[in-house]
């Protein structure tokens, strides 16, 4: 493909073949190239000119070989697909996906690119169309036409009687108005009304069920393993873990929806740094506190916990909460602390004794 290399850039040699040498006292070549080339459309060799048959022939051969290359690549694509990609019963798994992606994509790209370069060289080196001039026509109609249209419009309006009979006009408008509203009414069943859905989580339901069975509260289970969590299992200060109410996956009506609201982080704050909030003095167990994991900004999981500063960070928009101080906002766009879940101990297991005292997640109009 040596031919491609010296012509693909369409660097047609200058007439004399060598760059002009600057002789003191002659006009600077800089002036030549200043701002604009000589022609606004520096059509290389071919376009617009008589073709030099020898260089045209060479360009033709280059273009033809590029087209042949494109053809070969497309054939290769088909051959690979039929003959090779389906070996041993078809494509399975990451290695074969990677392999077929490489071959199919590479050959496809090669085919498109070879054709594209070929056509470009063809246009620039072989097409002999000359640039032409065309008139730009006035877009707007003449004043007479506009006047004629106006007259026709008024005549039609008068003929129809819509101007003369306001009763018709008004009743028609009246008839049309509800017609426009009807489709909106149809959309009502897109979803339920919000009601109190956003105000409570599955914790409340689970605590109620547990209390009916005479227990203090519902056990916390670890997200992923669904194992109930003992205080002794979570004794190391600085630890952080994601928990859910026991039974949420099995018993909740829409488990994923409930999990999306009930997901909670459990943090073991060292006792000397823990500042329990007023009225929540008994909501923690030896510094183990539970906060909603759903960020009060726009609802991403506030999943990052920095042990040294005890900051809880939401990776989406960097709202930062202080785990030692009732999850107050330290930085970022969130306006409210993460709601806290009241904890207690029963038979050595961590339990929640009530639902979050306030709606979790992003603020909404009715929240108050």
């Amino acid at each position, binding site marked *: 493909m040596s031919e491609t290399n010296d012509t693909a850039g369409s660097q047609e040699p200058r007439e004399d073949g060598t760059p002009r040498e600057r002789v*003191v*006292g002659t*006009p*600077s070549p800089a*002036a030549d190239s*200043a*701002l*604009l080339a000589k022609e*606004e459309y520096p059509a290389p060799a071919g*376009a617009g000119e008589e073709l030099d048959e020898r260089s045209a022939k060479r360009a033709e051969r280059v273009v033809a070989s590029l087209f042949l290359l494109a053809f070969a690549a497309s054939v290769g694509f088909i051959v690979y697909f039929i003959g090779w*990609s*389906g070996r041993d019963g078809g*494509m399975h*798994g990451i290695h074969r996906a990677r392999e077929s992606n490489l071959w*199919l*994509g590479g050959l*496809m*790209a090669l*085919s498109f*690119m070879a054709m*594209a370069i070929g*056509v470009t060289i*063809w246009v620039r080196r072989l*097409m002999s*169309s000359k*640039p*032409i*001039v*065309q008139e*730009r026509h006035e877009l707007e109609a003449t004043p007479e036409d506009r006047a004629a249209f106006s007259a026709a419009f008024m005549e039609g309006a008068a003929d129809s009687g819509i101007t003369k009979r306001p009763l018709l006009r008004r009743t028609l408008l009246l008839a049309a108005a509800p017609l426009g509203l009807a489709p909106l009414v149809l959309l009502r069943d*897109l*979803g*339920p*009304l919000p009601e109190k859905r*956003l105000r409570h989580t599955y914790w409340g339901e689970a605590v109620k069920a547990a209390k009916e069975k005479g227990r203090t509260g519902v056990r916390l289970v670890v997200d992923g393993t669904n194992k109930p969590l003992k205080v002794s299992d979570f004794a190391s200060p600085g630890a952080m873990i994601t928990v859910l109410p026991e039974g949420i996956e099995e018993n909740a009506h*829409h488990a*994923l*929806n409930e*999990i999306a609201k009930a*997901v909670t982080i459990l943090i073991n704050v060292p006792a000397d740094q823990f500042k329990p909030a007023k009225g929540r003095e008994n909501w923690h167990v030896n510094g183990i506190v539970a906060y909603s*994991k759903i960020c009060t900004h*726009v*609802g*991403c*999981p506030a*999943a990052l916990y920095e042990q040294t500063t005890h900051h809880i960070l939401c*990776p*989406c*928009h*960097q709202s930062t909460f202080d785990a030692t101080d009732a999850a107050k906002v330290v930085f*970022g*766009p*969130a*306006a409210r602390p993460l709601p806290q879940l009241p904890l207690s101990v029963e038979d050595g297991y961590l339990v929640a004794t009530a639902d979050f005292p306030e709606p979790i*997640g*992003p*603020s*909404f*109009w*009715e929240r108050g």
Partner: protein
Amino acid sequence: MSEASAPKAVEGPLNFLDDRLGSTTFFKRNMKKVFPDHWSFMLGEIALYCFIILLLTGTFLTLWFHPSMNEVHYDGSYTKLTGVKMSEAYASTLHISFDVRGGLLMRQIHHWAAILFMASILAHMLRVFFTGAYRKPRELNWLIGLGMFTLGMLEGLFGYSLPDDLLSGTGLRITQGVLESIPVVGTYGYMFLFGGEFPEGEYGDIIPRLFTLHILLIPGLILGLVTAHMMIMWHQKHTAMPTQKQTETQVYGYPFYPVFMAKTGAYFLFTFGVLALLGAFAQINPIWLFGPYDPGAISSASQPDWYMGVLEGSLRIMPNWEITAWGHTLSLNVLIPALVPLGIVFGGAGAWPFVEQWVTGDKRHHHVNDRPRNAPVRTGVGMAAVTFYGLLWLAGANDVLAERFHLSLFATTWFFRFAVFVGPVLAYIITKRVCLGLQRKDADVLGHGVESGVILMSPDGEFTERHEPARPEERTVLLSKERAKEQPPATDANGIPAPGSKGPMGYVRSRLNRAWTFDDIPVEEHGHGDHDGHDDGHTIEGGKEPKQISH
């Protein structure tokens, strides 16, 4: 060649159509339609071709994609997720990636094409703005373009929500939070979009709904707008850059058939080729690494596609303002970043052509573009908008910036909080100064000519360089600048101000008009000598005066 007639294969169908539609008149008139050339006129074409590629690859993907939130246990060929609970949407995306030959390629081309689609629209819109190509009579196409970009953002958001992987679920969660922040109707909007609570609602409706919007409604709208955009462009003829043969009454360039047709065909192939290269060699959105959506999980440095970055950045740097009163909560910390920045940029862009007409009083048709330097206020405002958008976009990646450059995360937030206000002002001032400087240079070339490289020695031994007048082509370009003249308030024959020039609006208009025009620099051809009043910087080089123009 002189008496050539088209071959039967062409003439036959053509005549068949012509007998029924009279179409040959149209073809004859349009076959040689002139398309002016400029590299920047190709940017919109990239967007068009990306759209076509999106339709093709998207159709392919729909053949295997299941828009369903039904829970399944994965048993496909990506063994690392075997047995994992996931939605059918996610499982079918894995199936497309690992079990359908070419499926991964099509997915990656589709995603890359979406990214390039939005990027090329933006580049195209910047070209149109900075060259003034949106001016009358092309305001409609400008608005259509804005509409397509906005729809493209939604289309992209819905599209990357479909695979129901961890990232896309996070995107939807943010969408939910933003919806909830809308006063009065927010929670209703949330319930109605999701068909209940996030993410599954009552019947797992969100993915099927987004699917329909993504593959039918929005592409249909975009297709309609693309068609209108192209037809209007074809009808009005393309704008041209100011050169010797391009005027308000004529257009100069190569004919559609064969040259432009071949070039644009090659361009389509280039676009497809580049996207195929990216699809083959540049991994994008490897959803199998993110895992299925889990409402309690997130990965750090989560980033949306680039065109949503500006919203992400606004959300990140907004201070935490929230108002609670009378039993209601107004989340300004979400509402403002979601609506205001893009409202300013898109609303401003939509209003701009009309505001400019109102301020300058220029209601003429324009077919020849402005050079950006020749409209310093427009160029300055454009650069201010670019800076504003760009800073918010960067703020959307502030965690990545902080990590890469070892900065404090909070410091980057504070930087952007101030920079979004200061940056645009600086950009406006600097851009306007640069434009005026370039205008002075143009005026200088016209008044003094260009350096010839010829050094002359005067009889008293002084060396000077001879200046020659610029070549005519160059002068045409320079002279394309119109003087921006301040308009005195319109008055009628009796000196009574015209109705529009009174009152506060009239005052604002005349102030803006003055801001647009007061420091205008005449770039005109005139005898040298009367030129030095305002560009002292250049008269110092008085030795370069073109003393021997008539040689």
